[in-house]
């Protein structure tokens, strides 16, 4: 499909093929601005009996046709360009339908090159199934067994600084060759291997793996100890993913022929939007996209963009893994009513095996939102641990000297400096009340001091991300006007205290003239009204045990923006944030906060 002038487009169709659902949005030029018209969705169809992702796309587009009253399809073809109000001028798409790229990474030193390799792979949106390092404690045959068992889509091999020793890298290549890994996508498919290690070892790696794998050699991802160079490896992984892995998913070849620009992996598209927000607003944001199979977290701190895909944390296919990783108690702590562990476990497993179902009762909704909190929290923990400064930068060392290095790098993520937290994904975007999304974000990320909160209105950031590559104006306009729902601002002083004791006094001076002051005690949450588009000056005056951003006991002043929820004052504590241990007390507090923020309707 080609369009001679994308800028002249008056109608745009964009889809996102998720692991659970396929979403389609229709954008039209109204006057001189682009606006979202409607959204449709349908179950993703990569599995039997369909095994063709385009079926789900067509079903989602049919819903768009129905809701918009506009004919877009001629049979099973998207009509382009538009003519007489039918068809569209542009069609673009993103995808994460296969559940993501599953790969293994190899490095020489577990805490250095292996870790850099892991960051490169995660940053490319991959699921890292295992990290194999020369010094990871496993015997060679154990590593080989593991390689055979996992059947990855791709392998990233790294190790050694440029000009350094080649021995360990050669060993890893030999290990890989002996394992003779087979990909899961087909017997005749050569496994892609990206080599991004010591350039002096490239020849050895090529000789060892060149005939057995689809080998690609790129720049060393850690050319010197002090510096990472993850970009080239990330790019290769991404390109190979598109070319090799996604192309093997059922129906993708057909879908590729339909779109104007290459189909973008969903995390890459959402990452573009977050980077754009950071750049255009000059802020340090965190974005999160919680999907069915994966939860992706994005951040820009100190000018550095980081992206992690927590491959097995999600709200449908991966929901049971959230339980397995966090434990039943951590989920139950968010549920504001008594539920038996046995019952909760069954509900979670039933959602896992029937991932497209939705909560019908309020109780089911509360449980799902409790699980979402844990998925978000765990994904954020992973993100923080991987968005770090480099280990081993204190002194020059050789590879062999660093085998037992244990010091850890500092995370770049700093909640005090966090300006904006943006949420996306079904459970956040489709929360029946926006305040539910706000509270899920706050409970999971525990933002500190002053943080603006927003949510993707109907989960369209992926589509806008890929659209921005071919039509930035349309993407930006729709993003600003229709996509982002401003929830408001969270004010959360850092510190802890005695339940009911004084914590902060917050004075809000709205730009339009009115002002208001509240006192919030420790253990309480309150909301102050500040609508979308409204701005205010806020003065947060904490008692001496708390830090609102200017130091303990010192008043912190900030300019803030409102939202559909307003200004949420969270005095439940930070560092630590602790929920009551007793189930009875905890349920009581949860209900108290839910009432204060009007989170759920009363059920008769």
């Amino acid at each position, binding site marked *: 499909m080609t369009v001679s002038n994308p800028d002249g487009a008056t109608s745009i169709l964009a889809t996102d093929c998720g692991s659970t659902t396929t979403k389609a949005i229709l954008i039209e030029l109204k006057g001189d601005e682009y606006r979202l018209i409607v959204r449709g969705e349908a179950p993703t169809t990569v*599995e039997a009996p369909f095994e063709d992702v385009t079926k789900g796309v067509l079903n989602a587009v049919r819903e768009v046709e129905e809701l918009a009253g506009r004919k877009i399809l001629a049979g099973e073809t998207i009509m382009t360009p538009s003519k007489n109000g039918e068809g569209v001028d542009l069609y673009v798409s993103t995808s994460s339908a296969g559940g993501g790229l599953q790969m293994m990474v190899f490095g020489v030193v577990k805490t250095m090159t292996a870790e850099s390799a892991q960051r490169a792979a995660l940053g490319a949106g991959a699921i890292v199934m295992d990290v194999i390092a020369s010094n990871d404690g496993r015997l060679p045959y154990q590593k080989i067994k593991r390689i055979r068992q996992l059947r990855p889509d791709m392998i990233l091999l790294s190790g050694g600084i440029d000009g350094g020793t*080649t021995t360990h890298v050669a060993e890893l290549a030999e290990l890989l060759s002996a394992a003779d890994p087979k990909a899961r996508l087909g017997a005749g498919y050569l496994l892609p291997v990206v080599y991004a290690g010591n350039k002096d070892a490239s020849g050895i790696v090529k000789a060892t793996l060149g005939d057995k794998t689809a080998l690609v050699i790129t720049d060393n991802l850690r050319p010197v100890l002090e510096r990472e160079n993850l970009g080239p490896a990330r790019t290769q992984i991404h390109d190979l993913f598109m070319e090799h892995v996604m192309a093997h998913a059922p129906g993708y070849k057909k879908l590729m022929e339909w779109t104007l620009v290459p189909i973008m992996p969903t995390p890459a598209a959402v990452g573009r939007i977050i980077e754009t927000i950071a750049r255009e607003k000059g802020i340090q944001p965190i974005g999160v996209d919680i999907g069915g199979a994966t939860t992706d977290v994005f951040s820009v701190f100190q000018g550095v963009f980081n992206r992690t895909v927590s491959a097995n944390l999600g709200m449908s296919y991966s929901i*049971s893994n959230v339980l397995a990783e966090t434990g039943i108690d951590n989920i139950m702590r968010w549920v504001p009513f008594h539920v038996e562990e046995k019952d909760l476990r069954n509900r979670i497993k039933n959602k896992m095996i029937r991932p497209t179902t939705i909560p*019908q009762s309020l109780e089911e909704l509360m449980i799902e939102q409790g699980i979402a909190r844990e998925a978000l929290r765990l994904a954020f923990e992973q993100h923080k641990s991987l968005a770090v400064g480099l280990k081993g930068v204190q002194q020059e060392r050789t590879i062999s000297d660093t085998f037992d290095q244990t010091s850890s790098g500092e995370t770049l993520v700093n909640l005090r400096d966090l300006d904006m937290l943006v949420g996306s994904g079904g459970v956040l975007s489709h929360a029946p009340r926006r305040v539910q999304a706000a509270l899920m974000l706050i409970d999971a990320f525990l933002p500190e001091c002053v943080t603006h909160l927003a949510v993707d209105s109907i989960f369209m950031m992926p589509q806008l991300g890929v659209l921005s590559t071919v039509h930035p104006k349309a993407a930006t306009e729709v993003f600003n006007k229709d996509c982002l729902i401003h929830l408001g601002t969270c004010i959360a002083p850092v510190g802890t205290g005695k339940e009911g004791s004084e914590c902060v006094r917050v004075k809000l001076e709205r730009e339009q003239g009115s002002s208001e002051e509240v006192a919030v005690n420790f253990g309480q949450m309150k909301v102050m009204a500040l609508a979308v588009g409204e701005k205010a000056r806020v003065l947060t005056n904490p008692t001496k045990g708390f830090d609102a951003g200017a130091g303990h006991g010192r008043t912190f002043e900030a300019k803030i923006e409102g939202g559909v929820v307003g200004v949420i004052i969270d005095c439940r504590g930070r560092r630590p944030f602790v929920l009551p241990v007793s189930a009875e007390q905890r349920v009581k507090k949860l209900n108290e906060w839910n009432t204060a923020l009007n989170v759920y309707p009363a059920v008769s």
Partner: protein
Amino acid sequence: MAHAYTPGVTVTAKTKLVRERRLPLAGTVLAKAGDQVKAEQVVARTELPGNVQTVNVANILSVLPEDVEGTLTKPVGSSLEADEVFAMSRSFFGLFKSKCKSPIKGTLESISNITGQAILREPPIPVEVHAYVDGKVIEVMEKEGVRVETEGSFIQGIFGIGGETWGEIKLLVKKSDEPLDASMLDASCSGKILIGGSRVDTAFLEKAASLGAKGVVVGGIDDKDLRQFLGYDLGVAITGSEEKGISLIITEGFGGMRMAEKTFSLLRALEGRKASISGVTQIRAGVMRPEVIVAMDGKPAPVTGKASVFSESGLEIGSAIRVIREPNFGRLGRVADLPPELRELETEAKVRVLEVEFDDGTKAVLPRANVEMIEG
């Protein structure tokens, strides 16, 4: 979703199925097109390269990597016994001998003059592929395997554990809502595929496995029992390689779930017949469901009711459906209405709904996402 439907699992008395039986590596195919095969018959065979052991000869013998080749007492490609010397060096005017012994029985595969390591490989591991179902070979994939076609009854479950197995069907309950109990088990269950009603627990599974039963097919299981039986919390639903001595298929879901009447009636009609079952489940893109296959083998197909045709256009008035989430989990009915407008649920979410008339005549309004069409 206007066109939303959740394709249900298939339960049918008679259908044709093809199963691909493929080796992980190239090997030898032992059957030819047209052959009638039995489930337990080996149709293809290969050998996996044995596990690899590396021996750092250079370090052990204190020689340079490039000199290792010269220390070999057995050439590359030789067979070795465990503890057999395959390299040796002499020092100090030949007075001191350093020896390098093989830690395994296997083959000296290669030597690296860069790392100084020897790669030793254990004897090959035979890999066999069985036919899995009684049927006819319809295609041979050279050096890889065969496709076996069978005609018979086919039941898909919603979740399972354990791999492929086969055995005679034996019902342990009279009604689909009866739970399985360990007291129902005895020596006659050995080698059988045991059929239950609503629920199975850890005690039953452990006793059944110890008695040599091959598999269990039942409506539901509590997750707490699954966790206890497996010994761990199942995270991602990718199963099939659990080695618990028995395969399990649940047909409805987690909890005490009455087996669907159609499924139970079909299994009851098939009692005494040989079934091939697989607990392999993958709940991801490319979903794989556990299954029970009973080849007709010349016998007539059970009569259990009309097969319905799966409609690719989605839900329609009159479509037969089952509710797949609380409330009303497991209830059967027919679509009475498909309102086009969004309706608000108790959660305040506005979604596409349908009106269902249950088999007992009562009606309910449900999210379209919470029903599945009944196939087969």
